[in-house]
């Protein structure tokens, strides 16, 4: 080689470039694989508030709040080490009441965090980091497992009890004129009436206001109360802590002058007048439904108003365009009556066996309308008493035919090829279905007619005592004139097996229903008994 110097230089440069390229990429790789591997904690607060002034210069900081609370508790230092007070209450933000400008907020964090950590370090105590990248970490140490905590009716009642029904201790409203908070008795609503996701003008966000209210009250009453009132993040926000919260059963009713029974009206006075309503008004058992749900918000959204205030007949902006008809009948939501009831029978395995076959597109039968829209007897007034009367008049138990009217056994033998005929225990199955309905009110109201139970299997036909058999409609498979309808073999298997699977009935293997004809060919199998 003539000029080894040249070669050396170029090779070095190339290798250097290669090195830089690879190392940057390796870093990138670590970053991408480093996600989601840290310790799970419910107390992680991501300090990234400065994003409101533009992009962060460094990665956001993960702040384990409980770790700090615990560390300070050992030192017997109170919350005011970090939190300022406003109206005698600790304010959730760190060392400030509001965010003025970027530099100031940044300095508050840097001065106080590093200052405190440094001080502790000087005293030789175990403490947090003081180097930039130890807080501003690209690769996060933790995974937040924080879950929003619910304030259900049980917890609410326990607070009612402790506060001796002094609702004003928590509930308030804002008077525009006096610019003061006041308490409107028996008109209490949820916090979310006013406290929204984000702070708006003088209305604090739900997050800040709830922490001010709950934690300050808990702190003040900590000593008085024998119970360990939760003040740490993980005591409310970790799902594991929820089991420790005592549940009342049954939950005593909330007292807010809500009706027990009520006629649901359209809100249109003319239509709601006696004799004028085109659709029978629905009597509604409000009291019973309070027990079915653990918060009022399941039906009432954020505000405790009557349905028809927002969901008017024609729909309104307040009701987000959802008119009264939809609000009551929309199927794919759990806010509406029909939607919620549909959820009940699809979720409950005892119901789902039959009801899983109900298509989402199916029209409700005219008969089912009258289960809720009960015809009004003549000469009664539209009041809550009438509602009570109508509701009590509904069937309270499901009904079906007498035992001797139900065929006991049906032998399915026309199809047997590889397997022997099936002895189908028809009556046993009917009885079992009726039994599983038990005293479920919803089931009772809708299965009052004797043939309704039959229609779980004998679908798509009239409700009669002698409905048509499977082979009336299901014949040879894959008829190109009606590709939607299974053939007879498919129909049996789909109906029986899917029902068994859904109802968690352990008989889904072939020989659970029919014996194999020639056992020497292959051994009997039994799926269900794995």
């Amino acid at each position, binding site marked *: 080689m003539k000029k080894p110097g040249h070669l050396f230089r170029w090779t070095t440069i190339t290798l250097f470039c290669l090195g830089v390229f690879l190392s940057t990429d390796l870093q990138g790789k670590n970053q991408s694989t480093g996600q989601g591997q840290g310790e799970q904690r419910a107390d992680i607060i991501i300090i990234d508030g400065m994003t409101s002034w533009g992009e962060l210069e460094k990665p956001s900081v993960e702040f384990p709040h409980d770790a700090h609370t615990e560390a300070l508790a050992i030192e017997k230092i109170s919350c005011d080490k970090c939190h300022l007070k406003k109206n005698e209450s600790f304010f959730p933000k760190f060392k400030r009441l509001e965010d003025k400008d970027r530099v100031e907020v940044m300095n508050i964090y840097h001065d106080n965090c590093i200052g405190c950590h440094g001080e502790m370090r000087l005293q030789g105590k175990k403490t947090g980091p003081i180097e930039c990248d130890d807080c501003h970490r690209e690769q996060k140490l933790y995974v937040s497992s924080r879950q929003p905590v619910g304030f259900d009716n049980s917890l609410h009642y326990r607070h009612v009890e402790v506060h001796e029904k002094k609702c004003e201790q928590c509930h308030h409203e804002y008077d525009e004129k006096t610019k003061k908070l006041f308490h409107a008795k028996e008109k209490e609503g949820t916090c979310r009436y006013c406290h929204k996701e984000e702070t708006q003008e003088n209305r604090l966000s739900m997050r800040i206001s709830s922490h001010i209210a709950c934690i300050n009250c808990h702190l003040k009453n900590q000593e008085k109360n024998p119970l360990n009132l939760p003040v740490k993040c993980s005591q409310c926000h970790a799902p594991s802590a929820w089991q420790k919260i005592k549940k009342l059963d049954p939950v005593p009713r909330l007292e807010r002058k809500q009706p027990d029974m009520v006629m649901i009206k359209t809100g249109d006075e003319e239509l709601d007048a006696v004799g004028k309503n085109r659709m029978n008004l629905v009597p509604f058992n409000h009291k019973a439904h309070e027990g079915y749900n653990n918060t009022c918000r399941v039906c009432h959204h954020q505000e405790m108003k009557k349905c028809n205030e927002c969901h008017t007949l024609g729909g309104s902006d307040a009701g987000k365009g959802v008119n009264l008809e939809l609000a009551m009948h929309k199927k*794919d939501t759990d806010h509406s009556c029909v939607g919620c009831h549909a959820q009940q029978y*699809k979720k409950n395995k005892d119901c789902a066996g039959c009801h*899983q076959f109900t*298509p*989402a*597109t*199916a029209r409700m039968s005219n008969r089912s309308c009258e289960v809720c829209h009960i015809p009004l007897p003549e000469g009664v007034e539209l009041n809550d008493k009438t509602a009570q009367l109508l509701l009590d008049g509904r069937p309270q138990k499901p009904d079906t035919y007498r035992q001797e009217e139900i065929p006991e056994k049906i032998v399915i033998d026309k199809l047997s090829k590889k397997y022997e005929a099936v002895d189908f225990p028809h009556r046993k199955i009917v009885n079992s279905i009726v039994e599983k309905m038990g005293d479920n009110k919803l089931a009772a109201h809708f299965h009052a007619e004797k043939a309704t139970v039959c229609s779980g299997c004998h679908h798509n036909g009239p409700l009669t005592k002698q409905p048509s058999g499977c082979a009336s409609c299901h014949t040879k*498979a*894959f008829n*190109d004139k009606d*590709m*939607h309808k*299974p*053939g007879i*073999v*498919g129909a049996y*298997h*789909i109906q029986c*097996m*899917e029902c068994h699977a859904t109802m968690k009935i352990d008989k*889904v293997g*072939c020989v659970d229903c029919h014996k194999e004809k020639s056992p020497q060919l*292959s*051994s*009997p*199998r039994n*799926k269900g008994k*794995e």
Partner: protein
Amino acid sequence: MSISRRKFLGWMGAAGLATSFGGDRAQAASTKEFTGHPGSFGVLHDITRCVGCRSCEEACNTVNSLPRSAKPYTDESVLNKKRRLNSKEYTVVNKSVQKGSPLFLKIQCNHCLEPACASVCFVDAFEKLPNGAVVYDASVCVGCRYCMMACPFEVPTYEYDDPYTPEVVKCTLCAPRLEKGQLPGCVESCPTESLIFGKRDDLLKVARARIEKYPERYVDHIYGEHEMGGTNWLYLSGVPFKDIGMREDLGNMPAPALTSGALHVVPMVVSLWPVFLAGMYGMAKRRNKIAAEEKEKAVAIAVEQAESKAAETLSQAMEKAKKEKENILRRMERTRKKAAEKGLAKSSETKSEEGA
């Protein structure tokens, strides 16, 4: 050159055209969209209905006279391990547990509308029949296995253990049975109608209707409707298809479209490359010729210059010689004159001496 250039280009063009326009299936890179042979058949596999009984496997084995498997088809332990298609099985059922409950997926050839295997086979051994089946002709297969490379569903398999007459093995949609008016073996044996057979268009309607009727039961996607340009085998599932090992990243482009660009370049290369190369050759030759000419010219000039210079030198020399000659002559003359005068004088002297 012994062959005329025109003849040569003709050959090249023929070779190129043969490779690019010969096929009737290479229509992918046009605005035309092939949506399958009208009325072609297919199968809809509703994964939510499959109970994993393996009746389809058994039926497939029987109707196709495949080697009997060692374990009986009732042995469900087979399902615990993920299996792939192989040269002894046209179809296999795999179990995967999703959210605690088992799901069963039957795999076999999907019978693409525009099959990758058929588009890449260099002996045209695969054929998409009008009834929807993609069938294989073992009598021409060379065994290059490009079909196996190309198939996005990893369907075709090979009899590696057969030393003399190995064949590619894959599901035929029971094309011979279809011709006789019979159902595919697997479909016929399925007890739950997890497999339904019919015209592809009808099956799509059935699948759409099921999704619409039971939106909570199905994901809103019919696998095979558009995948790789569409397949005659369609799937419905209650969980995302990728969770049960079906690739959702295949795209909707039919396989032939992937290579049509490269194929279309061929005639261009065949037509233009010789022109370019001949041009390069011509330029190189001309460059050399010009160089040679210039050299010649330069030599000529040099020669001329040399010659003229030589001539000049010569003429100068001649002149000089002439002058010199003249000088000499003049001198000689002068000498002669002098001599003459001298002689004259001398003679007169002698004369006088003689006279004296």
